[in-house]
């Protein structure tokens, strides 16, 4: 039997990791909401972000906790370029089936470029800043600060989406493309913006994840699927739904990893995903 304290520990870590996942899931659900495409290459942007965070640490001595704004900036640029040269001319014009294939192909291309540039080695950033102990439960400062950073960024973005003209224009595009066009919103700019924010968030998420995971060229697909699981679970486009389901998935993953085995953890998340798709395709939190 696993002691209660270990279980509590796993739950808290799952919760904190869920905070980071929510950044990724929010980006994915923004891209899906506005552009109506499933971007299978999202995991690869995450991989690039992790590599940038790794090299920033290795070459400049910048810890991911401090380098994440830089990573986010670079990734946003990459996002805009990808939109301009791949998404707009190629993916958005294709029929639905080809769209899926295009983004998957893009992910294979990026993976193999990473393989050529950085080989298949696992690389990680080792930093430690001590931990807090509350009632016998250890929480590392890194997990806690990353969580706080993720939450601050998400809340700021949420407020921007609700309060500014551009944010409202984005939501309008997500709700009804034709109507948004009619009232003079530039759809193309909105698409580019959504893609930029989504990839930029993958940048922040990747930098923060780099503190806990190793990076290698094929790290993306698994994390990518996990983010889609989270965003569908929360109901695509619903902010609080996505955040709440990130916590759920984070906790489920940590607890099943502890109780069964890490191999089963992903399988169980996916089973929950299929059940939710079947019984509540609009997400668990939407009315």
């Amino acid at each position: 039997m696993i002691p209660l304290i270990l279980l509590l520990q796993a739950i808290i870590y799952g919760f904190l990791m869920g905070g980071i996942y929510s950044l990724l899931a929010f980006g994915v659900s923004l891209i899906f909401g506005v552009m109506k495409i499933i971007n299978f290459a999202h995991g690869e942007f995450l991989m690039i972000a992790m590599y940038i965070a790794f090299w920033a640490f290795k070459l400049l001595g910048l810890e991911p906790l401090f380098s994440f704004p830089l990573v986010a900036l670079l990734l946003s640029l990459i996002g805009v370029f990808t939109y301009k040269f791949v998404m707009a001319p190629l993916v958005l014009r294709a029929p639905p089936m080809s769209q899926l294939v295009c983004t998957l192909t893009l992910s294979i291309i990026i993976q193999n470029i990473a393989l050529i540039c950085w080989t298949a080695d696992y690389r990680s950033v080792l930093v430690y800043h001590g931990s807090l102990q509350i009632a016998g439960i250890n929480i590392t400062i890194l997990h806690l600060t990353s969580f706080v950073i993720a939450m601050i960024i998400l809340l700021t973005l949420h407020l921007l989406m609700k309060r500014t003209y551009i944010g409202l224009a984005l939501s309008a595009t997500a709700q009804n493309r034709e109507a948004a066009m009619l009232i003079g919103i530039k759809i193309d700019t909105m698409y580019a913006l959504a893609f930029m924010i989504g990839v930029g968030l993958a940048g922040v998420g990747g930098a923060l994840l780099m503190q806990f995971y190793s990076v290698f060229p094929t790290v993306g697909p698994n994390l990518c699927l996990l983010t889609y699981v989270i965003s569908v679970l929360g109901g695509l486009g619903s902010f609080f739904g996505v955040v709440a389901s990130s916590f759920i998935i984070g906790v489920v993953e940590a607890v099943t990893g502890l109780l069964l085995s890490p191999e089963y953890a992903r399988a169980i998340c996916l089973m929950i995903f299929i059940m939710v798709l079947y019984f509540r395709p609009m997400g668990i939190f939407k009315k």
Partner: protein
Amino acid sequence: MKSPMMIKRLLKWIPTLLLFLLPLLIKEQYFIHFFTMILFYTSLGEAWNIIGGYAGQPFFGASAFLGIGAYTSTILYVHYNTSPWLGMFIGAIIACICAVLIGIPCFKLHGPFFALATLSFLIISERIALSLRGLTGGAYGISIPLKGDSLIDFQFNLKTPYYYIALVFTLLIIFCVHRIENSKLGLYLVALREDEEAANSIGINTLKYKLIAFIISAFITAIFGTFYAQFFRYIDPYSILSVDLSFEIILIALFGGAGTLFGPIFGSLILVSSSEFMQVTLGGKLPGLHLIIYGILVLLLMRFSPRGILYGLKSLISRAPKHFKL
């Protein structure tokens, strides 16, 4: 009037005849292996084509059925000494049952959600294969002991028998798909691909026909799973249950033209040979370079002819000036 028709009909059989004579003309085992792989991917492409092309469902889990077929026959052979031919049909039937179990929840979903759900099933099956170590050998996989030439054990020292088996199966499958294409089922599938609600409203039970297409597709795929296992005599979750393999199958059908009989044939001819060629010429220099070029090729095709290379060529020909017309 009658004899030109006859000649035309006979001409159609020449490629088939050539395929049967091929091992007599080429003795090199490497090439026989290569042609067997083309047949293998053609059949998988055709199988996917039924559900993905004609019925238009973005099915991303084809290698799950491949894995079911391969693991069933191999486990039966290694642990219980059952002939792989029997295992092949048991595996195919299990795959059909799984197709029903996966299909009923998944066919409620549309477009990208269907893709995600089937992808999830594939990954779940990979996890299951990884964790049932006693049965599947986990990440180490299973290798099939070599017993020498024997038809009952589905084992041959040379590649030529495998080639003929694959050829017969592939021709049968192409014939089946041809029959489906021209049957009521084929028309129903195309109707529900174009507009599911409209198909429903004229009384087509879309769920039923999608399930039938899915079951046929699963059956064929699982049979080739056994073929894969016997051909390579080694299976492991990372190769046979991988997302990459599923994706390759989809690419082959889409490259040639999904929803057409000849699409997967041309797709596998072009993609398998170009990937083999690039692997031979570039593979040694930079790992992964051939996949990058392969990917760029696919993206270019999707840009200029999203409905497949056959369709693109056809429209090119019809656009050409009259006297160039073939």
